[in-house]
């Protein structure tokens, strides 16, 4: 804990001639009468990327984003400004802009700095430094070779490796003074296979909050790229999917995107406070089958969606969203928790210092049930088995959501049959989980590839679930 704060102070404050006193002065100038809270969010983010195409690593890049976001909150009102320059005059200007939400002037009271305990879910070192440039190039080349060796029909391989090191410091008028140092890495493969004039692609990836060496220990790069090859070849054989409502069995892991879209967004505190979510005012109601329990857990070690603290400096936690089919709780940031008279849940997140925080998910997943996955497949006479997904989207007000299957099969007579082409599946968030009839005992979290968009802001997230049978989703095929 002390180490993260010291590192952040050195990088973000001292190098800019600032200290606890001067940022206290800025916060104090923000705390005019009527302002409930004021906050400074300092960030220094460094990222690198290496990509291979046509058998060679010909693109590499490095980026820096550094700045400070200044926020004043009064009741439901928020004033916000940011600066790419971390210097006192820019901070004071941004502060003046942010506190314009209230008209009065004069200095207000600050709470004494409160240095909280902190988790230690991931290493603090910059992942970019964990491997030399020649090794990164060699890694990507070896994956290209593995893909081409896997099958002669592979015609194009694109592999990329990226790493980010994010240092953030949050100082708020309520006494919050805390920091976090966040690594995030990602390895991605896209493969195109061609056979008899037909072409298809396959995509796979893995990542998390660790360095490149840990990434390679957890995910064999050869297996990762071979998985992309497998998808591409499978899709070459796929037949058109059917159209209409049918029984759908969802595979374990990344298909948890369904939970993220169908219920996760609808349980974010901002929508629920404003009453614009299909789940508003429904705490205590049955929204899922009795076998269904869903949590949002930001405290899992080194997962892509995990955080030691959220972007408001609040500790992350494991929040139960649905317990045995009953709606239990919402995900909150400080603003919405205060306005709803609830406790913050460590879900206040933002894309960067140039964006406002709001309630966002971390790692959202369903706990395992009692059923063997094979038994679930055997229970279906005719339907679809969606083993893996692309992305999804939801309209939180109507509750209608969609996600795209990228690996799917017909189920015929309790057996997995022909692969079908990628399709969208649509459903209704508030009732889809009531249609869950069987939950598997094979809970799996995704491989660390998820990015969630909300109001134009992107943040890394995780999802997971066991195999699950849904009695009635609309499958958007053409056959």
């Amino acid at each position, binding site marked *: 804990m002390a180490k993260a704060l010291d590192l952040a102070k050195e990088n973000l404050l001292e190098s800019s001639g600032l200290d606890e006193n001067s940022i206290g002065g800025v916060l104090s100038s923000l705390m005019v009468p009527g302002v409930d809270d004021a906050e400074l969010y300092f960030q220094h983010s460094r990222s690198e990327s290496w990509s291979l195409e046509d058998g*060679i*690593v*010909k*693109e*590499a890049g*490095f*980026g*820096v*984003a*550094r700045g400070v976001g200044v926020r004043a909150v009064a009741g*439901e*009102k*928020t*004033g916000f*400004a*940011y600066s*790419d*320059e971390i210097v006192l005059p820019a901070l004071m200007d*941004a502060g003046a*802009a*942010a506190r314009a*939400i209230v008209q009065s002037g004069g200095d207000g009271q600050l709470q004494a700095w409160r240095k909280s305990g902190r988790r230690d879910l991931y290493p603090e070192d910059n992942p970019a430094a964990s491997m030399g*440039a020649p090794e*990164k*190039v060699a890694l990507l080349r070896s994956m290209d070779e593995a893909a081409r060796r896997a099958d002669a029909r592979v*015609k*194009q391989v694109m592999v990329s490796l990226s790493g980010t090191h994010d240092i953030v410091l949050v100082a708020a008028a309520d006494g919050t003074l805390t920091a976090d140092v966040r690594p995030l890495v990602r390895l991605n493969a896209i493969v195109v296979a061609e056979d008899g004039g*037909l*072409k298809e*692609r396959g995509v796979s990836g893995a990542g998390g909050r660790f360095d490149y060496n840990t990434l390679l220990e957890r995910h064999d790069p050869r297996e990762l790229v071979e998985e992309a090859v497998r998808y591409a070849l499978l899709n070459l054989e796929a037949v058109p*999917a059917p*159209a*209409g*409502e049918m029984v759908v069995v969802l595979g374990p892991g990344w298909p948890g995107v369904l939970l993220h879209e169908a219920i996760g967004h609808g349980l974010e505190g901002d929508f629920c406070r*404003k009453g*614009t979510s299909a789940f508003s005012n429904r705490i205590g109601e049955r929204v899922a089958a009795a076998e269904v329990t869903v949590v949002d857990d930001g405290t899992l070690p080194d997962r892509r969606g995990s955080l030691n603290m959220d972007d408001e400096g609040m500790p992350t936690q494991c929040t139960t969203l649905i317990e045995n089919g009953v709606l239990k709780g919402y995900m909150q940031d400080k603003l919405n928790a205060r306005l709803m008279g609830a406790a913050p849940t460590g879900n206040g997140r933002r894309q960067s210092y*140039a964006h*406002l925080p709001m309630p966002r998910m971390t790692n959202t997943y369903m706990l395992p049930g009692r059923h063997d996955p094979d038994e679930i497949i055997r229970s279906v006479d005719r339907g679809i088995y969606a083993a893996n997904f*692309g*992305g999804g*989207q*939801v*309209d939180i*007000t*109507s509750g*209608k*959501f*969609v996600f*795209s299957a990228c690996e799917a099969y017909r189920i015929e007579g309790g057996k997995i049959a022909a692969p079908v082409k*990628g*399709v*969208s599946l*649509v*459903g*209704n968030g508030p009732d889809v989980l009531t249609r869950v009839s069987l939950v598997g005992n094979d809970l799996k979290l995704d491989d660390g590839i998820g990015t969630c968009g909300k109001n134009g802001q992107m943040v890394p997230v995780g999802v997971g679930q066991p195999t699950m049978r849904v009695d009635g989703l*609309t*499958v*958007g*095929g*053409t056959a």
Partner: protein
Amino acid sequence: MKTQDFDIAAAREQALSLVAQVLDEAARRNADAAEVSVGRSYGFSATVRMGEVETLEHENDQDFVLTVYFGKRKASVSSSDLRAASVADMVAAACAIAGEVSEDECAGLCDPDDLAAAVADLDLDRPWSLDIAAAVELATECEDSARAAPEIVNSEGASVNTVRALHCYGNSHGFSGGWSGTRHGISCLVVAGDDNGMQRDGWYSLNRYSPRLETPAQVGARAAERAVRRLGARKIASCKAPVLFVPEMARTLFACFVSAVSGPALYRKTTFLQDTLGKRVFPEWLCMDEEPLIPGGLHSAPFDLDGVGTRAHAVVRDGVLDSYVLDSYSARRLGLHTTGNAGGVRNLAVRSNAGGFDDLVAEMGSGLVVTELIGSGINPVTGDYSQGAAGFWVENGALAYPVEEITVAGNLKDMFASVARAGDDVDERASIRCGSLLLPEMTVAGK
């Protein structure tokens, strides 16, 4: 605080001097060539929700992106930190990374002959003399107008925003130039409700000139009308039916077309429109022209991200693909010439062969109107298309009832070849300007 008080001339001078400084530093480190772009933007937005100010956000961005070339090796860096020492560090980092990558035969700046000869003044910079108090007033008026409808039970708010942005670019061919542009918007998102549930929809107006914006009251009223008409939406039975896409959705189909004929998809051979130059992609009546130099145009720009002068040209003529969409690098990969499209298409206009939305609904007789598409069910390699949708069922040439929780599916290649009508209800807010689009048949999945 007004965007007109932002000293754009001074910002431009600073940005161009940063361009020169970065190019000098790259040369000092023995880069054979380099290019750099510097961006600045300044503005604010005010959001009013349920009659009260919800957020006031100030925008003040700066960044630069540098690419250095050592022979056929290249590397790129970007940063928001413009302190002199940091900039020098970034140039050094770029030069170091370039030494680690492989040679790419096609890497390099654009051909010097393609550089914009002069930076055309397209009259894109028209600041709005609006302060925050006035923005709050307009946003309030907008939301009030939406909430006046009795069915509107809740609101996500109305926003008024104004931004002034500067784009500067220079490269070691000796080119250096910059231009600035404004962008003003009014938007509103509201929730309609009845015993069956809630529906959310909205509307926005966007322009470089504030007098050309729809009035706040018009934006609010249209947002309300769009949310209210969705109430009582139902699921329909699966069927094959004609589908009419409203302009905002039609342009997402043309966006698939643009990426399918763009450089990266072509040289990677990851497009369902591979080798279609000179071939028929759309019906014979369909023409598409890019018009990047329209004065005051929302997506107009005097030069592209390579410094290449943009020019008006046909992309589709009589249904035949007349030009790919290329930047300098992809053109070199394909043995073709750049089309000035580094950064995408700018004001790509689809010519109409029909009247407006109502005429097309009448012509369709019965079928589906799509007003919203969600999801990521588009395969760029095969053109297979399957998206979640909401809209209206049409009977006897008129909207009968709203529908939701359905999908529309087909293959983009077949969909493009079969387009029956493009309406004259052209939406000029996006980089692709088109009206409603009528397709004779798609698969609709529902109950």
